[in-house]
Every structure is written in structure tokens, then in C-alpha cells.
């Protein structure tokens, strides 16, 4: 019983207290409002300042107006009537109380501490003279110990992505946007490659030996060797040699090329589970060539082919291609397969610890990249290049390392992006980031 009474009394006290607080809060609000309007008339007021300061309960916070700009300029204070001066004094108190309530609660942002133990192997592409080949440049891919672009303090990705230019050893249908940039050079694959390197800064050249396709020209393995030889003479970057995609013919072609150029650090594009791997891998193993294991959008198949290829070829000479479709055409499958594989690799799955290759030219297969559409959607030349660029941006974020690119504009943008993304994440003039808010922008 006595407990009930106690509670009742306590409740009454609480009510009285909050009534008083409400009165004070209301009064302060009036003062604040009056000061804002510049009219101050206070009558019959008794205030004990320390009371005001100390007894504002937390429940009153929400009802308490928080004055921010109520302090008038100082010269006016000097001229003000005594009543006004008193009011200002009260207002200042209010301000202090207000500030106390809504003081910025400073906390720090602690950076993420993910726990990864795996490492992507480092794969050397191309061989310079000192490395036994004749290339003037070579580069290394991979070596990652964290997912792409995590920017954790103390970790720098050991190797940057690299970009190669696509060429084909015979005339094939190419988007007009590509024909426009390369012009006559397209008639001569070596010239095409030379323009890629000299004019557009390709870091490697991809030769797609389409002519060897049995359903097309069915060029022989010997002819393919001659083509590769001409390329090796004309460009001094690393070279990626692609077959026709015919599993039987590719074995012939790759064997011949491996035998002919065992020390150039070529990249063989590509091996897949439909090929009789035992007929081609032993030969490649004897050279310093790198192979691309192709496993379209399947993590499981990627593990399977890698496990097989390990029988002959060391891990640090294998790239992985999980395939990508242009935006709207299966991009999400390739993207997610890459994300899954890379995460698994960094969590310790050794079968997936390989740098990724991306065939960006697939992006041009998207209808929106080549089709003539209503003028609202823009010229197809613009759409096509943008499609390839954006498909690459997505792959870059999934951790892709080597990009086979069809259009020079894509390569240009990728190089800028690489420079930006691999610089220190320290903003300069961050205030400017909000200038868009108040700037009048051209309406196109």
C-alpha cells in the first residue's frame, strides 16, 4: 500500500515538475520569438536563472524551440533598453540550454576490418629481352589480398589492371563507331595493331585468329603462326593470341603457336572444358606462355577447369575468364560470378586465385549498342562506345584485371578511371562537391 502511495506522490510530483518545465519552455519560446521580431515587452516576470539552466528535463527537449540566430548584433545590445538587455540575457541562456541539448555528438568512423587470408596469384604477361623474349614491355596482373577498391589503410593493390586492344586477322563485321576511328588500318591487321599501340596507347594487343575457324576460312595452324609472327614484329607490347572457339582446331593452332614462340610470354585465349586439354597443355607448359581458362558464368566450372589445367601448367600462368555480357544481356551473371570467385579466392579457395580477363567487346552484342533507335536514344555510335565503357566499369568494380577492348574511347576512359581509382582516396576541395546544388546548369 505504501508503495502505491509513494508512486502516486511521485507521479504528482512529476506532473507538477513537468508543468513547471512546460511553463518555462513556453516562456523561453515567447522570448525567443519576441527577440526575433525585435519587440520585447516583459511584464510580471520572476526568473531564477540557475533554475532555468539546470532543470530542463530531457522530455522537454523536443518541445523546446532551439534558437540559433537570436543574438542581435552587439551595437544594438549596447543601445537597448534595460528590459531588452534582460531579455537578451535570457535568450543567451536559452541558447546555451539549446546548444547543450543538440550538441553535435562527435564520433569517429572506424574503418572496416575484414578478415581475408587468401591471395590472388601474380601472373606475368609478356617477356622482355631480359626475360628471354623480344617484348619492350611486360606487366604483372593480380596479387590481390583484398576485394577490389576497399582502400584499407596500409594496403596498396600490388598491380593495376591493364588494357589491350582487339584486332582480328580477317575482315569481320565491326560496329561503325570502330570503323570510324581505325579507318583504313582495319584492312591490315598489323597496321590496326600498330595504331592501337602508337595512337591509342594499348598496353597489349589481342589477335583473334578468326580466320582459323573451320566454318570460315579454315586457315591452317601454320598460317596462324605466320600471322602471330608478323604481329610480334610490328608491335612490341605483350600479345594475347585468341583462337576461333572451335575446340579441335584451337588445339592445333595453340600447339603450333606455343612451339613457334616459346619465350614471348604470350597469352593463349582460351582453354575450356570442351577441349582435350591433355592435347594442348603439355606443350604450352614447356613455354613461358600464360593461358586464359574460360568458364562462362560458372564458379564451379572455373574450379573444375583450373584443377585440370594445374596438372600441366603452374598456377601463376593462368588467368580466369568468367565471361561478361553487355549491359542488358547477362551482365549481372558475369559480374556476380566474378564477385563470388574473387571473394572465395580471398577467403582461401586456391582454385579461384587467378586474375580475371574480360572480353569487353561482348558489350557490342547488346542491341542497344548497335541498333538504330528513335533519335531520343542518341546516335548508335555514342551508345556503342558507352556500352562498352560502362560494361568495363562494372567489371572493374568486380575486380577484373585485364580488359580486351574494341573501341579506343573505352581504353581512354579506362585509363583515366584507373588513374583516379588507384590514387590516394583523399578529397581535395570537398566543399566544391556541393556546388551543383546552387549552380545554374545548361539544359541540353
Amino acid at each position, binding site marked *: 500500500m505504501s508503495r502505491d502511495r509513494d508512486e502516486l506522490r511521485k507521479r504528482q510530483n512529476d506532473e507538477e515538475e513537468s508543468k513547471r518545465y512546460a511553463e518555462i519552455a513556453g516562456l523561453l519560446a515567447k522570448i525567443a520569438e519576441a527577440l526575433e521580431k525585435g519587440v520585447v515587452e516583459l511584464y510580471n516576470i520572476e526568473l531564477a536563472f540557475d533554475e532555468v539552466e539546470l532543470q530542463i528535463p530531457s522530455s522537454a527537449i*523536443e518541445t523546446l524551440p532551439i534558437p*540559433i540566430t537570436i543574438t542581435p548584433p552587439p551595437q544594438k545590445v549596447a543601445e537597448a533598453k534595460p528590459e531588452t538587455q534582460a531579455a537578451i540575457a535570457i535568450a543567451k541562456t536559452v541558447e546555451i540550454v539549446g546548444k547543450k541539448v*543538440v*550538441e553535435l*555528438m*562527435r*564520433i*569517429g*568512423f572506424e574503418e*572496416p576490418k*575484414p578478415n581475408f587470408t587468401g591471395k590472388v596469384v601474380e601472373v606475368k604477361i609478356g617477356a622482355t629481352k631480359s626475360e628471354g623474349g623480344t617484348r619492350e614491355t611486360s606487366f604483372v596482373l593480380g596479387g590481390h589480398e583484398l576485394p577490389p*577498391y*576497399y*582502400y584499407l589503410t596500409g594496403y596498396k593493390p600490388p598491380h593495376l589492371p591493364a588494357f589491350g586492344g582487339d584486332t582480328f586477322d580477317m575482315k569481320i563485321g565491326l560496329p561503325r563507331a570502330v570503323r570510324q576511328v581505325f579507318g583504313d588500318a582495319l584492312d591490315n591487321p598489323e597496321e590496326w595493331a600498330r595504331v592501337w599501340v602508337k595512337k591509342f596507347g594499348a598496353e597489349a594487343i589481342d589477335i583473334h585468329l578468326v580466320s582459323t575457324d573451320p566454318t570460315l576460312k579454315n586457315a591452317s595452324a601454320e598460317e596462324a603462326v605466320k600471322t602471330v609472327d608478323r604481329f610480334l614484329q610490328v608491335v612490341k607490347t605483350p600479345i594475347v593470341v585468341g583462337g576461333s*572457339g572451335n575446340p579441335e582446331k584451337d588445339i592445333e593452332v595453340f600447339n603450333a603457336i606455343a612451339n613457334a614462340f616459346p619465350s614471348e610470354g604470350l597469352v593463349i585465349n582460351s582453354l575450356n572444358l570442351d577441349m582435350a586439354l591433355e592435347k594442348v597443355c603439355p606443350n604450352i607448359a614447356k613455354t613461358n606462355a600464360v593461358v586464359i581458362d574460360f568458364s*562462362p*558464368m*560458372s564458379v564451379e566450372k572455373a574450379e573444375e577447369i583450373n584443377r585440370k589445367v594445374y596438372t600441366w601448367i603452374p598456377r601463376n600462368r593462368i588467368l580466369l575468364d568468367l565471361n561478361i*555480357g553487355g549491359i*542488358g*544481356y*547477362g*551482365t*549481372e551473371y558475369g559480374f*556476380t560470378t566474378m*564477385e563470388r570467385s574473387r571473394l572465395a579466392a580471398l577467403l582461401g579457395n586456391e582454385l579461384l586465385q587467378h586474375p580475371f580477363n574480360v572480353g569487353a567487346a561482348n558489350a557490342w552484342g547488346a*542491341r*542497344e549498342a548497335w541498333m538504330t533507335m528513335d533519335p*531520343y*536514344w542518341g*546516335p548508335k555510335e*555514342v551508345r556503342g562506345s*558507352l556500352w562498352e*565503357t*560502362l560494361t568495363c*566499369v562494372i567489371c572493374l*568494380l568486380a575486380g577484373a584485371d585485364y580488359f580486351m577492348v574494341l573501341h579506343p574511347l573505352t581504353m581512354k576512359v579506362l585509363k583515366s*578511371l584507373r588513374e*583516379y*581509382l588507384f*590514387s*590516394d*582516396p*583523399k*578529397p*581535395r576541395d*570537398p*566543399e*566544391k*562537391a*556541393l*556546388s*551543383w*546544388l*546552387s*549552380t*545554374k*546548369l545548361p*539544359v*541540353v
Partner: protein
Amino acid sequence: MPWRPPTPIEIYQLLPQTNCGKCGEPNCMAFAVKLINFDTTLEQCPPLIEDKSYAKNLEKLKALLSPPVKEIVLRSPKRVVKIGGEYVLYRHELRYMNPTAIAIDIDDSMDRDSILKRIEAIEKFEYEYVGRKLKLDLIAVRSVTNDPKQFAKTVQIVAENSTLPLILCSLNPTVIEAGFNVLTQEHRPLIYAATKDNWREMAELAKRYEAPLAIASPGDLDMLVSLAKTLSEGFGISDLALDPGTLIGVNGLAYTVKAFTWLRYKAVYDLWKYAGYPLIGTPISVWSSLEGDVMDKMWWEAILATLLMTRYADLLIMHSIDGWVLLPQVMWRFQLYTDPRKPVAVPSGVREIGKPDEKSPVIVTTNYALTYSIVLSDIEKAKVNAWLVVIDTEGLAVDVSVAARKFTGEKVAEVIKSSELDKKVRHKVLIIPGKAARVSGDVEDATGWKVVVGPVDSSEIGKFIEKMWTENKLKELLSQ
């Protein structure tokens, strides 16, 4: 510890356990399983919602299923847009929930006609893809005059002439307030933005109008989360969104990617509540921060939009209204937000297009939803009566399925047999996609039908049929 879904048992224990079946499931356990897969919602269980004795359980269930990234609702009288509500860093861990909302700006220096024209362009933007209509979501009204009256006028025009929810953009609280004053209660716009300088006043506005509030703290993550803490705990504002700044160029872009990644990581892996809000990217920034011509700016705006969407942005504010800038964004968004556990596939089988008869062409395609719907629409557009054989490539497109050996003669033969197509047509000629040319021999062997390799792209089907599907050609073909 990353966010983990509750177990079915945990959920089941809080459900009514009456197996009443009102949710459409045979029992409460089945409903529980659907809940944790996010294939259904609590609202589908009427007893739980209506019966007050379950109120406590409902609250517990909501808490168990609530996302580590808060879901924020923006509203106009006609539309609702939800942002955030995310659970995972990588889409394969579950799926992404609310597709990145795309807002296009309108500024208060524009005259009425320009505003109306722009509204029309925003509202009319639509692209049909896999049977869906891809559209834009929001209008961001910016104050470039910093004049409350002018801003109010603009907001009013926009509200009266558009159906989309709004973002009120200014750092000046008086301007924002003027915007609110001309909006009806049915509007729930996002306030953009509270900063380290104006947060008190913006917080007041957010409280008074019960509106969600964006916090902008470019280049300063400490300040961003400090403001998130202050506004949520000090002011009790629960609906916040975070903009760490969309910076570009050397250092800037790296910072932006880092900030988006860290914020989302902390939200879903560390379940850190101060990072657990939707993220805002502003590709529009390039228009005021990048040198170069208009084309350069549009190009970079497109790149930033794709990049930020891929790196967890829940809302993008953009300036370009050009089709080529926005088209890849809405398409990629659609893909990124599909459920990776469910391939976008249609059932295999034979479809009748138009009114096919025993002489009509038989066209083969895959069961990837996109391939199927494009081929379907192209055949329809060409007004060809045809039998469309859809084979089960496990939801892969033609070229990919050929490479992955999912497009095989056996699969074609299966469908022909199960549908008894050989009884419906007399000619025994199959048209396969140009991209499947490589498997034509295989298809002939497995089906015993004559195979003709069709166009590489189905938009050529009309022309192809016109040229190819004549009596003479067929005779010639079948006599070979």
C-alpha cells in the same frame, strides 16, 4: 558479423501457428520459410496484423526481419518510392532489394515552360525491356536563386504537373521551408541536405514536416556519422539518408568509392547503425565540377551513375535527361536488382505466334527471358506466323548457351518430341539463331530435321523469312 537471416524456427515461434492458410501457404512453417527468403511479407498473414494479441510478436518479427540499411519512403499523392532497405554487400549473398531510385533535377531559375517541358521528359521516359517498363523515379528541385519565394513557386509548378515524389534541394533552411509550405500533406519529399553548418535548422524542418532528411558531408566520414548519430539520437529523426560526396578525378573518385564501400560495409557487416541508412550519389556533380564540353560531362555523368549504382548507391541525382545517358542506367539497374537465385527464364516448349499452320516456319530460341521476349517481339513486329521452339538453356542467352554447351540438338529434339511438333507442321525445317550456327550439325543429327541458320539478330527475322520462306526455296532446301 554480417547480417544473417533468422532461422525458420525463430520466425515460426512468433507466428500464430494456426496453419489457417490465409497467407496462401499450407502452414505457418512454409510461410516462415518464405519470409526468411523475402518471398513474402508479414502483411500477408492477416491474423498477425489484425489480431491485437499478436501485436508483440509482430513487433518482434519486424525487428528480426528488419534490414541493416533502413528503408526510407518518399511519397507524392500518386507514387511511392522506397530507397534503402538493404541487407547485403554482395547481391549473391541474398539479393538487392529496392532498385536505386533515379532523380532528375529541375532548378528554380527555369521559366514555367522549361519546367513543364522537363517534367514531361522525365515522366515520359520509358524503355521496354524483358516485358518491363523501365522508368525514372523522382524529381529533385534545386534552388539556384536562393530565393524562398522563387523556390516555392517552382516546387508548386512541379507538384501540380508531375506525379513523382520530390527531393527539395538547398542548403538554406528558409528555402526548404518555403518549398514545404506549398506542398500538401500527401507529399513526403526528401530534404537535401543537412550539413555541418545547417543541421539544427534542417533537423527542425524534418521534425516539423515529418520528412526524411539527407545528410551531406563531402569528404568527411567522421562528420557524416556524427551528424547521423546527432540527428537520430539527439533529435529522434529516424529517416535519414547519407551523402558522403560524389567527387571525381584524381583522389576524389577513389575517396567516393571508398566512402560508399566503407559505409555499406559498416552497415551490413558490422551492423553499425550510424552507417545503416540509404546512400545518395550525385552524378549531377560533374556538371559543376568538371571542365570540358557538354558531351564530356554527360559521358562522365553516365560513368559515375553506373559506378555508384554498382557500389551501393540507393538514390542518384542526375542532370542529363538524354536517352543515351539514362538508358544503360535503367537497364543495368534492372539486372543488378534481379534475384540471383532465380535465373530470369521462361518455360521451355512450343509457342504459337500469330496463327501458324502446317506450312509456317519453326524458329528455335533459348529460354533466357530476355532472348525470348526480344525474339517474340521481333517476330510479332514482322507479322510472321510462326512456331517458336523455346529450349531449356537454363536461362542462358544464345551465345553463352552455345559456349556452355546448353544449346544442343538433344534439347531441341526434346521439345519437338514433347510438343508433337512433327504432327503440326509438314516441312521438317528448323531455323536456328545465327549465333548458334556452330551447333547446326548437332541439331540436324539429333532431330532429323533440316536446319537453316537464321540471322544473328532477331530484328532481321522479318527480312529473313520474307526471303527464305518461299515455296521454291523450301523445295530446293528439302531436295538437298
